[in-house]
């Protein structure tokens, strides 16, 4: 049986909007009720959330080069 055939499929469908805070209050309660009793779904939600935070941190480590910042400031239109 795959994850799509089991009763957790609905919880999985709600995972992305749940983590994006896009669910209604009622849907949120529904997801949380399932998460409270289902260790498998909790594990998936936790992994998804950790991954998202980790990806965001990893790609944000690349700072803007200082020379580029100077070039942008030089693009300003001079005042008459």
């Amino acid at each position, binding site marked *: 049986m795959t994850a799509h055939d089991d009763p957790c499929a609905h919880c999985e469908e709600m995972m992305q909007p749940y983590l994006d805070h896009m669910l209604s209050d009622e849907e949120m309660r529904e997801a949380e009720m399932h998460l409270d009793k289902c260790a498998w779904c909790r594990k998936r939600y936790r992994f998804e959330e950790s991954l998202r935070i980790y990806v965001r941190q990893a790609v944000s480590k690349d700072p803007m080069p200082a020379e580029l910042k100077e070039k942008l400031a030089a693009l*300003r239109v001079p005042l008459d």
Partner: protein
Amino acid sequence: MTAGTLARMAEAPSNAAGPDAARLATEARDRVRFEEEALGLSDQVYRVARHLASSREEADDLVQETYARAFRSWRSYTPGTNLRAWLLRILTNLNIDRGRRKQRTPQMQPLEANDYYLYDKLAESDGSPSDEEKVVERLSQDNIVSALSDVPHDFRDVIVLVDIGDFSYQDAAQILGIPIGTVMSRLHRGRRILKRELADTFDEDGVNAADQEEST
């Protein structure tokens, strides 16, 4: 001439200069304010650009062109609205116009088969089950940057705007000029593709490491 000088000029125009001078001074003050506000957002704009573009050089070019265009057409920005989204709208349009993005065929492997594939890959790499929070740390920064750049551009755009740029679905829809439903479906599929790419990149790293060990 500083913003402060301009502000004083706008508040107290000399009688001799007349209303035209006052209007010009107000406009100059608004422009300086716009430029300073836009430059203040440059780190955030760059962070998004860096991953929308295919390389660092392209990101640099795109950001410069975006700011050059923004400074020229500052009057079309409505003060009080989301300036970061306005700048990103210019940037994504330039990116599309230039056709600078990697044109890849979306990967059509059976992504739906097992969305937990990446976790399994990472967890099995050291032979013991691990915390969800810890297991992601087995991915290197290179793994992530490389996997993200391999996600087809339509999907990557929404991931970069929402997950890295912190834009709402609504803002991302406006920036990209697509319906909000499309943002949601691309985001959903894009995150799955990213996970598949991360698993593949992680695998390749493992293979490379094993090869190196054998050859020494």
